């Protein structure tokens, strides 16, 4: 095969060097990289406060805007979870917590955290900031569209939060918004609330599509010279694949939200069966509530991986940099990301085992679900093998990485329980499910976000975050999160149902009440611990230790910009030229323990650098 690809002289020279093990025959032609195919990008440079910082077309600023708005929304989600825990741990302590409010908070907490916090933060925040820098582009390919994407997200958030102030309040139908109850009287927010939720989701999808097109085309068509797909950092692979999933999964959500709005406003019966209410037949009839579940979960399951895949990618890079080792099995990692992404479209009905489906249907979805464990386990092994005998820096970033691996494995294993129909049916709608998905797609991605913040903050601001505060933040979050979710597995096993406002005099009370109090106290502490990060950021933004260029001695391009933090256009006069992958750490024979992606082969002639 190799002779078909021999026109890439860089690879040829490096491989011959690796085989001969010496520097013979390495000349200037080994450094040759094909000239640029397209002209340098034409950028609009803002010149006023508004065009530079508000309606800005610079992907880095848009990334930070996404990050801040998603974090703001996430804090609202956090406060809602406090209120929920207050009710569950200490029923009756807060007089304003009615059952209606409880359900509204459950719904808003779920939707905010999954869509408006995690998705927006990973793809909008990290995607915008990192993709152009990591592939060596000056900016996203369509900067104007990118700006509109953020402002659509802004309007979507505004509409979502407006539902707190409309008559009836926000919808209380659970984040899955299942009809018929979502739009029937008696469910909180069945009029305005669900309407605004649907509008907000449609706006979010529209805005995300604009951003997503940018991420995809930037990765596919705007890489710098020498940057092949298989030289990209795994962060880019994760965000890229997640964006592909989002482009194909969000349509189902859009259609579901649109049809539900029509059921709600025009009185159509897409999802509404014949319903008797207080002895009277409602106007609705002939629709299928299960259809909504299919549409929702055709979006909902890929959504899990839209959050998880960027996390997988980012954590791979963080572990590699801070263990000073190349990522173990890079190609395997790439194909695992792609494979998980593809499989995620064939598993959605495992969320619907109790909807009365044909057992053979459940069998099919259980099989596909469990197959996902294979590429996922490959990734976990590779992370561990990357750490194995690495030169580990046990700093805050690494702590978050280790925390991620532990929580992810924990959540993944409970996922194998729930993927099996016969185990899922008794555990369905119990606290076991809550524990599972919070571990695997709540806490684990959050650990990655935190690690990524500590890792890339020096790039964004030019200063380090405070390590001591960071360690406090980590240990409180990690131990606290375990105190919250580990006991929930037990609550699930004894059968405590989820989404219950209060346990009243049920047989669970005696054994669950003390545990619920404990979980609630832990939740208050973990929530409060997150403000350590905010304090840390505010404190170090002005007074933190200056980071300078490439403070972590990383290889990837985002650290190699002429100025730190990078300016609009990223690269000054000349775009970088890439000669290798992003993981040349601890190469035998090299002067330093890292070789940056832009280092030409002639400069590392006597090292045992791998062909990439």
């Amino acid at each position: 095969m190799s002779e078909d690809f021999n026109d890439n002289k860089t690879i040829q020279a490096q491989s011959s060097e690796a085989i001969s093990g010496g520097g013979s025959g390495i000349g200037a032609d080994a450094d040759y990289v094909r000239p640029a195919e397209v002209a340098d990008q034409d950028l609009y440079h803002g010149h006023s406060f508004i065009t530079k910082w508000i309606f800005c077309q610079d992907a880095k600023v848009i990334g930070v805007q996404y990050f801040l708005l998603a974090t703001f929304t996430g804090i609202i989600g956090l406060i809602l979870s406090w209120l929920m825990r207050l009710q569950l741990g200490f029923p009756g302590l807060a007089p304003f917590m009615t059952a209606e409010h409880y359900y509204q908070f459950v719904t808003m907490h779920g939707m905010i955290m999954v869509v408006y916090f995690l998705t927006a933060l990973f793809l909008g925040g990290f995607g915008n900031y990192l993709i152009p820098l990591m592939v060596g582009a000056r900016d996203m390919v369509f900067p104007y569209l990118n700006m509109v994407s953020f402002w659509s997200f802004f309007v979507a958030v505004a509409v979502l939060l407006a539902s707190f102030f409309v008559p009836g309040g926000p919808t209380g139908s659970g984040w899955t918004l299942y009809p018929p109850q979502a739009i029937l009287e008696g469910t909180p927010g069945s009029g305005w609330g669900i309407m605004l939720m649907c509008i907000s989701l449609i706006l979010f999808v529209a805005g995300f599509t604009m951003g997503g097109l940018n991420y995809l085309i930037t990765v596919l068509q705007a890489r710098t010279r020498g940057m092949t797909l298989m030289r990209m950092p795994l962060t880019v692979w994760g965000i890229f694949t997640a964006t592909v999933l989002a482009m194909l999964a969000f349509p189902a959500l859009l259609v579901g939200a649109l049809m539900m709005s029509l059921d709600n406003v025009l009185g159509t019966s897409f999802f509404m069966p014949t319903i008797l209410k207080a002895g009277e037949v409602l106007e609705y009839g002939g629709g299928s509530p299960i259809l909504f579940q299919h549409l929702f979960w055709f979006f909902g399951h890929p959504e899990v991986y839209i959050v998880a895949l960027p996390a997988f990618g980012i954590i791979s890079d963080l572990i590699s940099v801070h263990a000073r080792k190349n990522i173990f099995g890079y190609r395997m990692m790439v194909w695992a990301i792609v494979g998980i992404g593809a499989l995620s479209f064939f598993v959605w009905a495992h969320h619907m085992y109790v909807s009365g489906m044909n057992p053979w249907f459940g069998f099919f979805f259980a099989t596909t679900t469990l197959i996902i464990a294979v590429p996922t386990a490959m990734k976990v092994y590779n992370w561990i093998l990357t750490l194995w005998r690495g030169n580990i820096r046990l700093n805050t970033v690494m702590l978050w990485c280790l925390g991620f691996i532990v929580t992810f494995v924990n959540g993944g294993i409970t996922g194998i329980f729930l993927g099996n129909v016969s185990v899922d049916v008794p555990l369905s709608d119990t606290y076991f499910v809550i524990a599972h998905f919070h571990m695997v797609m709540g806490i684990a991605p959050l650990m990655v976000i935190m690690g990524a913040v500590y890792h890339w903050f020096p790039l964004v601001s030019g200063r380090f975050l405070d390590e001591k505060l960071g360690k406090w933040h980590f240990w409180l979050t990690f131990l606290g999160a375990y105190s919250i979710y580990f006991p929930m597995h037990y609550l699930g096993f004894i059968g405590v149902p989820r989404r219950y406002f209060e346990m009243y005099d049920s047989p669970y009370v005696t054994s669950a009440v003390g545990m619920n109090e404990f979980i609630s106290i832990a939740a208050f502490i973990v929530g409060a611990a997150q403000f350590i990060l905010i304090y840390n950021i505010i404190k170090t933004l002005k007074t933190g230790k200056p980071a300078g260029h490439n403070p972590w001695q990383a290889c990837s391009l985002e650290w190699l910009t002429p100025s730190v933090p990078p300016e609009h256009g990223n690269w000054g006069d000349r775009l970088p030229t890439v000669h290798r992958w992003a993981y040349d750490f601890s190469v035998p024979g090299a002067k330093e323990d890292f070789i940056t992606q832009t280092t030409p082969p002639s400069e590392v002639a006597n090292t045992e650098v791998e062909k990439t």
Partner: protein
Amino acid sequence: MSDIKIEGYEFKPGFKGMAKDTGSDQTMFKGVHWGKAMMWIFLLSDTFIFSCFLISYMKGRGSTLIDWPNPSEVFGLHVFGVDVPLLLIAIMTFVLITSSGTMALAVKYGYEKNKKMCGWLILATAIGGLTFVGMQAFEWGKLIHEGVRPWENPFGAPQFGSFFFMITGFHGTHVSIGVIFLFIYAYKTFAGHYDEGKRGWFTTMKGDYVEIEILGLYWHFVDLVWVFIFAFFYLW
């Protein structure tokens, strides 16, 4: 794609060529304009939207307990004392497909820098689209006049009205957006924005005839979707 020349890069035919392009640096689709690649991916996403609509429609139609109305009666026209089934739809489909042809010609003349022909053909396409939307409005009006509503339908299952108005409405919105852009692009073509590379009002990017091809992709897609809607609603 043999007419594209890239310095220092040798194209290979067939599957090997595809693998080589994928494995190469800078771009995966060699010589493909960013905007064009973007439109293809957007259309893929849009395909999923319409697929969700049509699959939901099939599910709704398949599971309803009340009989589905007979499309050739509901959509028939009474012309000169004769009942002609699907007459209006046949004309609508013909107009829309024809506008795809004029669009393709516009792209050709655009790349030949024949400003006049290109502009007129875009205008013809826009008028074709407008005619389609107009006839659709007429059909909606006729059905509404006969008592069909999104929530009820005198001819049978109420879901018929719901799905019909929703899906044709969503498609009609696509056509309308396309028509608006066609008029804008016709103006830009006649004004010579693509010849002189005048910067866009919003995007500040230089104008180029490739934009017409990108809009053309969208327009052909809208036509293709209509063929599916036609098949599923009117022929089933």
